[in-house]
């Protein structure tokens, strides 16, 4: 009899004995506190509905940092010189390259800024950004603080953005001054953010902006919503950039960043002891499916606040675990 293909063997191992299989997979990651057990079957009771259903949990007592595993670990292992991100932007005629070491620097700095702005463990930070490296820094920095990131694609309408702000109640919004869709002119995000915040009953305390040269985000202090927003303009690529009256904060932010960097280095084991969660907001579920055009699609408003919450540790276990092996090789995504 022919030997069973390895993919089938791996699959069978995962379903026959999840505990052993996923414990072994977990060994491929760095845990700030190793889980004593991988899998647990539980029962969930819902009082409001008076029903109970079977449920499960993974790595219940483990503690792990996604950012540490994605970035720091490689630098500490001597791979800081490997390229982490290549950015190719035909719409702006720009290209950039970041090594793991540079990426760590960006993420540490930005995490310091966010912490200074009051982002804490468990807070939600909403990302509304185009496809630029800063969007990745934002995700990793938010995760580093043990906060939750809610990604909304840059370019969503103010109404759609407002719904997501209301649903996730973010402490801060991270955005950019503009997005560029194909050959069209840059779309300013300022008006979109302002209108969305105005429409939403929840007012995020802070907006952190990545200034792009193609179209800058000019802060208008006369806008009616300004009392709700303390808009903070940061060009985190080139140090800190402030407009108008926020210049006094420049110095403090600079200092805090430097502090964060040193603290990050010194207190590694303690600093990252957070269970990381992230959430994914998506509001529309189409009853009529994905291949539909305009009139046919409709959304299920009852699922409006759907936000699955999941442990974010696990990419590697499945992605690499079943052989999406990328080594030090590039991956393009669209």
């Amino acid at each position: 009899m022919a030997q069973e293909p390895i993919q089938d063997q791996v699959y069978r191992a995962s379903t026959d004995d999840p505990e052993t299989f996923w414990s072994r997979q977990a060994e491929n990651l760095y845990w700030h506190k190793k889980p004593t057990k991988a899998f647990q079957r539980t029962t969930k009771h819902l009082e409001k509905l008076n029903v109970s259903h079977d449920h499960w949990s993974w790595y219940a007592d483990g503690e792990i940092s996604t950012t540490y595993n994605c970035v720091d670990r490689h630098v500490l292992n001597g791979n800081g010189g490997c390229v982490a991100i290549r950015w190719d932007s035909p719409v702006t005629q720009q290209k950039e390259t970041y090594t793991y070491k540079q990426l760590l620097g960006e993420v540490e700095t930005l995490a310091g800024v966010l912490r200074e702005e009051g982002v804490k463990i468990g807070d939600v930070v909403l990302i509304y950004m185009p496809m630029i490296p800063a969007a990745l820094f934002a995700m990793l920095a938010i995760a580093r603080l043990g906060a939750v990131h809610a990604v909304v694609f840059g370019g969503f309408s103010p109404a759609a953005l407002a719904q997501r702000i209301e649903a996730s109640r973010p402490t801060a919004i991270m955005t950019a001054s503009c997005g560029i869709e194909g050959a069209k002119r840059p779309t300013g995000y300022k008006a979109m953010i302002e209108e969305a915040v105005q429409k939403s009953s929840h007012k995020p305390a802070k907006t952190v902006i990545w200034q792009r040269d193609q179209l800058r985000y000019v802060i208008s202090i006369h806008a009616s919503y300004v009392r709700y927003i303390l808009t903070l303009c940061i060009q985190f690529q080139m140090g800190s950039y402030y407009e108008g009256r926020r210049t006094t904060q420049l110095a403090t932010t600079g200092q805090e960043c430097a502090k964060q960097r040193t603290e990050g280095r010194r207190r590694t084991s303690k600093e990252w002891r957070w269970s990381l969660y992230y959430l994914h907001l998506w509001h529309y579920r189409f009853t009529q499916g994905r291949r539909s055009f305009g009139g046919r699609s409709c959304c299920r408003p009852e699922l409006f606040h759907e936000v699955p919450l999941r442990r974010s540790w696990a990419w590697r276990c499945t992605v690499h675990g079943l052989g999406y092996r990328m080594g030090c090789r590039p991956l393009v995504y669209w």
Partner: protein
Amino acid sequence: MRDLNVKQSLTSYLRLAVYAPLLVGATTVLFEGKPVGTPDAGTFWRIVDEYKVTTMFTAPTALRAIRRDDGDNEFFERRGRQGALKTLRALFLAGERSEPSIVEMYQKLLAKHCAPGAMVVDNWWSSESGSPISGIALSAAAGFDFSSQDRPTPLSIKPGSAGKAMPGFDVRVVDDEGKEVKRGVMGNIVMGIPLAPTAFTTLWEDEERFYKGYMKRFDGKWVDTGDAGMIDNSGYISIMSRADDVINVAAHRFSTGAIEQAITTHPSVAEAAVVGIPDALKGHLPFAFITLSTHEHPEGAVPDDKLANEVQKLVREQIGAIASLGGMIQGKASCLCTDCM
């Protein structure tokens, strides 16, 4: 509104693109542009060439957009002939169903110009799953030993199928009562508990909605995916449509995906979307929206008789006369909103 859906899927990919390559210490190429028009339909292949890309992840809608602008794959062929695409080992497709015609076309191109054994891998996942639920593993040996350098020959692909279940996902096909159906029969795609560790375990601050939206339909026994499809005898999963995309024509149930698949076997059709339009007699009639893969796109919205008849014939042959189209409209843009690209 498919664009929104694609974007939603892309939100998942954004995480895939950030966390997965970084976790393994790879390089991720972040692209700010579109598959066509920035500046042309060759931009993806320029990137593969320039950055020596080994694995590319995209949505079939991007490939369809390229096919619409570059029907003869001149851009791909030109770079391929120069030997510039030899690094590419796999083209992963996700975000929506990949019809066999697009998979087969790119599989031929990959075999001709890319790394030995290069594959088009359709894989299926959702926001809820957090990682692929089904697919084909390129280095499956890593599932047992992470540092393994062995590269056993991967399972073969079956165009139209999104591969086999990935570790930790117990995928089943059941009828409306939750009873498993025979292999090869279409039904509701569900998953047994537990889901793999990447998957969600609840909804944000809403345990009740998690139960109502995913667990209640099959009484807590299965997690509902909302997708409809089938699993064949060797365990390959085909996702045909959203469960509510199944249309009822004269008491026959058809997945719109299967009809779209038949339409796209026509060489002049780049993309197809089928919807059910109400019909007093039959309940529903399938109605198709198509875009053409020709260089010159005609102005009119009604396809010429020759094309209409040919497409109708394909549907009759591949699905059955009962699924004959109730109408067809052709357009220039694949998506009503170009933002999706």
